[in-house]
């Protein structure tokens, strides 16, 4: 006996059907591995790698140690600096792209570097920055310096290459939000006496906040877990948390400690994601409560102002 389902139930059923592959995939290859890492971080280390199944907080105790504290502090300052630089460069780039007539071409140019393996791009930087590399040999040739500058194997080089690697991740979300922004608002602001910079800061920036926080998360999280860049272009004091995790797994055979450090990375990412969700929510909330800041509200305020101004002139 067949009874046709009502369309709503049918849709719900289909929805869960379509949702399963992705749900299953994430459970199997994301949630389960993450759970294993969490579990391992509370286990006793095996002498020759692996873990013994005894619950202990040893790994977290070992983490409280001046050596690791220095690495944590370094990781934070390198990541924050690199992320802020990424944003500062990405903002004008994204703005220019949004206003350009050749958006497709520019987008294409941003994406192209992704087609090259990141290791190859890092090695390219090594050849550019080397003491006898591209930059230094040019500077020597034109007589500006006599001896190669120390451009590589320090934290400056790490930040430079990180900014290069993650810049597209900042530009793309900023571009999508700026592209949706109504640029006539800027003209309006200029009409009302704001100079160019003030109009960008006071009118555009508040309207693209969600893009800025997305860009921040997209760059900060991968940079915080960076491993190859500090390993290859960093110096003797460029170790970051990512390097410690690898060392603990492959050299020191301390899997619980490696898991505990991974937990820190995961926690930082979680905080970031929650912050992103929170700013998104707050923006929505603002749209509901205070009509002052949304583009529409701003537009109507501006219009009202114009009307008042033209009345006054008359």
């Amino acid at each position, binding site marked *: 006996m067949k009874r046709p389902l009502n369309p709503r139930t049918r849709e719900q059923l289909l929805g869960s059907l379509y949702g*399963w592959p992705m749900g*299953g995939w994430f459970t199997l290859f994301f949630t389960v591995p993450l759970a294993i890492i969490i579990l391992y971080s509370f286990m006793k280390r095996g002498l020759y790698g*692996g873990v013994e199944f005894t619950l202990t907080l040893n790994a977290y105790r070992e983490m409280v140690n001046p050596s*690791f504290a220095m690495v944590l502090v370094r990781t934070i300052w390198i990541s924050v600096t690199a992320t802020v630089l990424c944003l500062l460069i990405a903002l004008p780039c994204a703005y220019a792209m949004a206003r350009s007539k050749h958006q497709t071409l520019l987008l294409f140019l941003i994406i192209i570097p992704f087609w090259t393996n990141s290791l190859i791009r890092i090695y390219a930087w090594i050849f550019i920055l*080397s003491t*006898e590399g591209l930059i230094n040999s040019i500077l020597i040739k034109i007589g500006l310096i006599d001896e190669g500058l120390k451009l590589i*194997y320090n934290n400056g080089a790490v930040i430079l290459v990180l900014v290069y690697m993650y810049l597209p991740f900042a530009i793309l979300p900023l571009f999508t939000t700026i592209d949706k922004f109504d640029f006539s608002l800027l003209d309006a602001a200029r009409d009302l006496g704001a100079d160019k910079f003030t109009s960008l800061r006071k009118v555009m920036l508040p309207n693209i906040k969600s893009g800025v926080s997305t860009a921040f998360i997209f760059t900060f999280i991968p940079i915080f877990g960076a491993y190859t860049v500090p390993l290859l272009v960093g*110096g*003797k004091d460029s170790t970051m948390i990512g390097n410690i995790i690898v060392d603990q*797994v492959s050299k020191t055979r301390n899997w619980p400690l490696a898991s505990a450090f991974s937990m820190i990375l995961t926690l930082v990412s979680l905080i970031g994601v929650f912050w992103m969700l929170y700013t998104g929510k707050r923006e929505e909330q603002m749209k509901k409560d205070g009509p002052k800041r949304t583009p529409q509200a701003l537009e109507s305020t501006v219009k009202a102002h114009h009307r008042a101004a033209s009345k006054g002139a008359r």
Partner: protein
Amino acid sequence: MKKHGSLVLGVLLVLVLILTGSGCSKSKRSDGKLHLYNWTYYTPDEIVAKFKEETGIEIVIDHFASNEEMFAKIMAGGNHGYDIIFPSSDYTSIMITKGLLEEIDHSKIPNLSYIDPMVAEKAEYDPTFTYSVPYFMGSSGIAVNTARVPEDYERSWNIFADERMAGRMSLLDDMREVMGAALKHLGYSGNTKDPAELDEAMELIITTWKPNIVKFDSESFGKAFSRNEFFVVHSYPENVFAELSEESWSTIDFFIPEEGGMMYIDNMVIPKGARNIEAAHQFINFIHEPENYAIFLDDFSFPPTTNTGAKPFMENESFFFTSEDLVNSDNISDLGADLDLYNTRWQKIRYEH
């Protein structure tokens, strides 16, 4: 209704995954081939081809990049059908104590007679070769670009204290190698468990060596050396020389300091559960046939440290070092739980100062 539907689907998905997963595992029966588990770039193709030609046995090779990786795999899933594994000495001794290895039948390997007596002397973990046969005995050392450093540099570990080369030197990013070097320089054993000696070695590295080096580098020191970025590198010679053309070898001085350094012996072992033990013995005997061993050495420009008969068959005649250079060196041995004495100090060296 809705919940049930998705539950059933989920169970189905898991079942499918389990079934396909188990379908992939290797069958337990021997396929007549010889399965090796060796370091990346450590088995010359010519040897593989010649072995097949002479015995008709095909060789299948899996690769690993570190002892830890190999060991984790064996511990996690048992022997994956490998007939010969190539661990370094510390892991050879771990595998012996854990009872993971088959005994070697010496009657099937007459070529054992070619093994240099010095190897047996250094192989404290298995001096009678009951469970392991040496594959290659090598060592780290120091490579110097003589064209770029002052002529009167010291040929000892103390070279890293020389401020004239500051900013142009690198040490390996390897706890046992670097701490071992400092211990040997101070006249101690490279495998010491004495905290006072280890403290002294740590002080030496932190106060006199670390200020002069650019970085601790185990990944790209060969490339950096070849493009004149580093002039003095603590290194494995094969990695350095592989990056350079043979004409430029004359300006490279590679040496193992007289006070001794840290050396290694890579071994061939037959794991329990191997399916082709007969062929494994055949291969071990085959590789130590002097003519074949010479092919292996030439392929990597290795010096003849391990097999006494190979030298006359070799094409390469300029060696980075000889077995005499290793007389004072210590073989890196497994320290068990005492490894933490090194770990804590290495953390301070690497991360704190």
